[in-house]
């Protein structure tokens, strides 16, 4: 499964029924827009941003129940009577907020790319 990838004419999928594709709404050729350089760059950039971070936060998240269920490493005291389990738990909150801010900043840039695609590829084409 390819994230955000698009089908290109004459690719190697023989059973794909190009002939029976439904009538497009209006005159917009979405297949052409999807193949345009601008659009492909945008989906590629999004994928490079989203995929590694999603893997990261899921691994970070599931490490907590795995570590607490199968080991005792997080039960050692970190500061006073506060164990590493609590530090790890609160670190998940901080990670959520940080990723939230990072996401918004990055996607604000993508908004401009998307506007450009609408202007030049969809309306202009």
């Amino acid at each position, binding site marked *: 499964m390819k994230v955000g990838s698009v089908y290109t004419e004459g690719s190697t999928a023989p059973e*794909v029924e190009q002939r029976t594709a*439904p009538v497009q709404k209006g005159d917009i050729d979405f297949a052409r827009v999807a193949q345009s350089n601008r659009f492909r760059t945008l989906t590629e950039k999004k994928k490079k941003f989203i995929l590694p971070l999603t893997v990261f936060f899921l691994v970070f*998240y599931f490490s*907590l*129940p795995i570590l607490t269920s199968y080991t005792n490493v997080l039960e050692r005291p970190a500061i006073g009577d506060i164990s590493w389990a609590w530090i790890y*738990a609160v670190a998940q909150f901080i990670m959520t907020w940080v990723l939230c801010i990072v996401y*918004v900043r990055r996607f604000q840039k993508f*908004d401009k790319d998307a506007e450009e695609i609408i202007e030049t590829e969809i309306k202009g084409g």
Partner: protein
Amino acid sequence: MSTTVIVLFLSIVLLTLYITWWAAKRTTNAGEFYTAGGGLTGWQNGLAIAGDYLSAASFLGIAGMIALFGFDGFFYSIGFLIAYLVVMFLVAEPLRNLGKYTLADMINSRFDAKKVRAAAAFSTITIVIFYMIAQLVGAGALIQLLFGIPYWIAVLIVGVMMTIYVLFGGMTATSWVQIVKAVLLMLGTVVIAALVFARFDFSIMTMFSEVKTATSHGEAFLQPGLKYTVPLDTISLMLALVLGTAGLPHILMRFFTVKDAKTARSSVVTATWIVGIFYILTIFLGFGAAAFVGHDAIVAANSAGNMAAPLLAEALGGDLLMSFVSAVAFATILAVVAGLVLTGASAFAHDIYGQIIKKGQATQKQEMKAARQASLWVSVFSILLALGAQSLNVAFLVSLAFCVAASANLPVILYTIYWKRFNTTGAITAMLFGLISALVLVAVSPNVLSPEAGAAMFVGEPLFPLTNPAIVSVPLGFLGGWIGTVLSKEADARRFAEVSVRANTGYRE
């Protein structure tokens, strides 16, 4: 029942009725009814999303769980919060860009198939019903405790109120009741947490060292493992919590109440901050209750620990604070069940009546009428079920709703947005595999079958060892979608190109 409690209780009722009256004047077409006309700002919608999330189960349930089980209670808070990253990174913006009123709309942006729409509507209704019974049964028990009125009257009061909001005020009233309640709930939580913190001399270190000796569990209270002792069950629960939110129809519906993906994004940010701060404060609530109310008093009031927060309020701020917290808990229940009624009604009226029976040709007037009738029937049906389900364990119904959402809805949502090859058959098999495996595995789990009489619904040996089946049913949902897609030959690359362009750019005619 004291006078303060009655005054605060009635103020909440009157305030929400005023909101409904105000909203009713603007609710003149189907778009207004289902999505408040898409006119909420990021801030407002963020508060409403947070409000939908901070149900009585969160507010009362998690505070109680931490008070009774220490660290293990906090697992829920973490799972519920990280779930927002899944929503934000993978689902929120494409969903807003592709959908109109319901989850089925979004999936059908790729498939013009009645079968797919029917399957999506069916899983939406299943989740809504489970969640609703859980909330109504919990609400009935809680109001019975708080105000000393019989269970059936309590359920009827909540049922009638939720019906009024939705029937007359649609999504506008539902959202604003949710927003007002979110603000009140945060206010109450911050006040209690501050009072708890003051008792510990505003020192986190003092708080931990005092709580260490405050309960009969001693040091174990601050360590994981007090409640969750089966590793796979813990991980399975965490999986349902983190993936379920992105498939819960009443949360997803909130993304249609804003005008574009940018606003959807900012509403998730607002919601994440509010929910995150709230869940951090649940530590103070839980520890405070453990230290100043005590295990025995909490369990004496309600064995699941649901009364921990109100009892803590009483211990810290006397009758006034206790009344305020009770009134807020009541508002919480009303707001969440109203959102559920609306979501169930939109699946019936928009998906089944408007799109499948009337083939999208229903007039505004017909669809509005259908939506109102559906709201009424969803309400009546769930009130009747809740009246008969008084003795059911509600925690298991909530975790079941999350599990069905993660298994039946999330795979099909992700495939629709990201997988080029995905097709109609795959969409149906994904939903059916996820839905059926979650339901069947729960039906043979220790929640339903227990060798000990009275511990579960029926006496018998459980056929499936885990209380939460997500770790099996979620992969089955994904697998079902993959098998269905690969086995059927149909594919429509042009349509995926359109979905991909629309999802990524937000383009609409």
